[in-house]
């Protein structure tokens, strides 16, 4: 572990620590066991910070007295870019927010634009989106599982989960033509219909995946080391989660049954049978258990979607609304009106004046887009409500007076991606 020794407490005591999240208590300097504080810099190039997160830590022995996350190393100005590029072209950039689940971001952005323009997505389009979102959720949870386990020493888990991820990548490759950064969701639906063969492959994958989850659980759930390093570490109460705006699996692990898919359904989630797993204690182990169970539920949803897709075969997968949706290519080449529509949409596709917010339950929590339009082709504002930022914010809350070695399991279990945090 790279640890830069930055200075001693005596130097640092002169300048007040920039405390906001919590204040280091009084240190008894005559006490031989305490006395000297040490500042450590963890990151931004640290493997356990899952990206370019930097954490400033002040240590008393091995106990963390002050923790401050520093973010912004991956800031690319996405919100400004959206104002410059316009509504349509920003889809590509949403992929790069949480790059472990690009299609989820696509869907969230598309839905916020649809609520701004009041556009109805056809049933088959919604079903394909649900399938893509659930596959994305599994992909993101697999990364969580693999990276957290490798940080805590279980290297095999990493290969197990990446094997499964690779299979989902192949599915998405077959459907969208890309492994990563797919950009396959459009306003009003999805770019292309789901191929029969892809659906068959997806079903095959869904059938074998629950057995793989059992395998993951065999590796970790009863594992003494995994249990000891996660149980009672980083405990969050429901009240804390509410106060610190934590959502998603972190909130559910604390015991609150809240899932946007159930409570404020979108994309026809109300048509599928699934359960919301919740934890009891709200510690790192519960967060792990909740994510494992969520993967099982996601597979369950995927199977139901694949059944539903059989029934809507040949149906519309994108709204035929020529204000926002590009006409099919063969029509563009053969019809003057469609050519004009194509031209209008590509050059300036305006959304109605007003503001709208739409959130989806992403793998990290509530991912929402707050979009403000003045009736032109370029947004006035596109604010990305990133769940990861709130998860990073909770790091000091969880690390108060814990041992330094717990940082790794806490960071891992909070689960964030810096692309989304920094935007």
């Amino acid at each position: 572990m790279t640890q830069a020794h930055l200075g001693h407490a005596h130097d640092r005591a002169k300048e007040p620590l920039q405390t906001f999240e919590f204040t280091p208590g009084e240190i008894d300097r005559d006490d031989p066991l305490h006395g000297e504080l040490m500042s450590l810099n963890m990151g931004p190039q640290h493997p356990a910070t899952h990206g370019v997160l930097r954490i400033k830590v002040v240590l008393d022995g091995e106990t963390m007295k002050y923790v401050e996350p520093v973010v912004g190393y991956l800031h690319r100005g996405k919100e400004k870019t959206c104002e410059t590029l316009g509504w349509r072209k920003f889809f590509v950039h949403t992929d790069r927010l949480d790059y472990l689940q690009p299609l989820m971001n696509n869907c969230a952005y598309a839905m916020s634009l649809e609520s701004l323009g009041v556009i109805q997505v056809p049933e088959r389009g919604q079903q394909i989106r649900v399938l893509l979102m659930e596959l994305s959720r599994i992909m993101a949870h697999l990364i969580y599982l693999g990276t957290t386990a490798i940080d805590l020493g279980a290297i095999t888990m990493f290969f197990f989960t990446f094997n499964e991820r690779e299979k989902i990548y192949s599915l998405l490759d077959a459907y969208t033509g890309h492994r990563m950064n797919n950009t396959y969701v459009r306003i009003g639906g999805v770019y292309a219909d789901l191929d029969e063969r892809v659906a068959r492959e997806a079903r095959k994958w869904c059938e074998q995946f629950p057995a793989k989850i059992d395998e993951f659980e065999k590796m970790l759930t009863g594992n003494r080391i995994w249990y000891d390093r996660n149980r009672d570490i980083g405990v969050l109460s429901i009240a804390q989660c509410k106060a610190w705006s934590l959502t998603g699996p972190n909130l559910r692990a604390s015991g609150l049954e809240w899932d946007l898919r159930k409570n404020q359904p979108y994309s026809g989630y109300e048509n599928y049978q699934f359960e919301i797993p919740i934890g009891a204690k709200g510690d790192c182990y519960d967060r792990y258990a909740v994510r494992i169970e969520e993967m099982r539920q996601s597979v369950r949803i995927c199977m139901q979607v694949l059944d539903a897709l059989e029934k809507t075969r040949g149906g519309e997968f994108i709204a035929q609304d020529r204000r926002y949706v590009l006409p099919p290519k063969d029509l563009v080449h053969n019809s003057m009106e469609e050519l004009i529509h194509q031209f209008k949409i590509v050059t300036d596709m305006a959304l109605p004046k007003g503001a709208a917010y739409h959130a989806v339950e992403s793998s990290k929590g509530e991912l929402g887009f707050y979009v403000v339009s003045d009736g032109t082709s370029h947004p006035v504002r596109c604010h990305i409500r990133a769940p990861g930022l709130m998860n990073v914010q909770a790091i000091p809350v969880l690390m108060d007076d814990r041992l330094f070695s717990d940082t790794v399991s806490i960071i891992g279990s909070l689960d964030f991606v810096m692309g989304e945090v920094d935007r």
Partner: protein
Amino acid sequence: MSTIERIQAGLEGVTFKVVPSREGMTTIEVSITDAKETIRRLRDACGFETNTFVTAVDRHPREPRYELAWQFLSYRHNDRVRVHAAVRGDAPAAPTIIDLFPGAAYSERECFDMFGIVFEGHAGLKRLLMPEDYDHFPLRKDFPHQGIEPDRLYREWDRRRRERSPIAEESES
């Protein structure tokens, strides 16, 4: 009781205006002086338990220039509310809500970072995403998308780079 009825009951005595929103979310507009009290009542009397985001919209060159937006979620009642308040462009300031919702701390820091709106009473108000000694506020409408190059910060970085390696300076001159 619908969301708006609950809010009307909870916000008795505060002047607010209901404004339309495209997605049908309850949206109210208050003056910036009433904002803190409104948010306190929303939390205590109306059951909005968590802050979803704090952000601003720049309406440059219109005045009042900024439109602050707070959004809250109620788990108990399963609904949301958005609060708008207008802030003038000269020395923009707003009350902080981190004593009510600690989770708004990073959102407020980001809003300060991007728009330069000072949240009064926020103890740790500093830049979140941009470098700490950066001069500008990037999400303001008068900030160009390509950035401002001859900037104090860039000049400072350049100076430090030259100090570190005199060879670089020689080869350039």
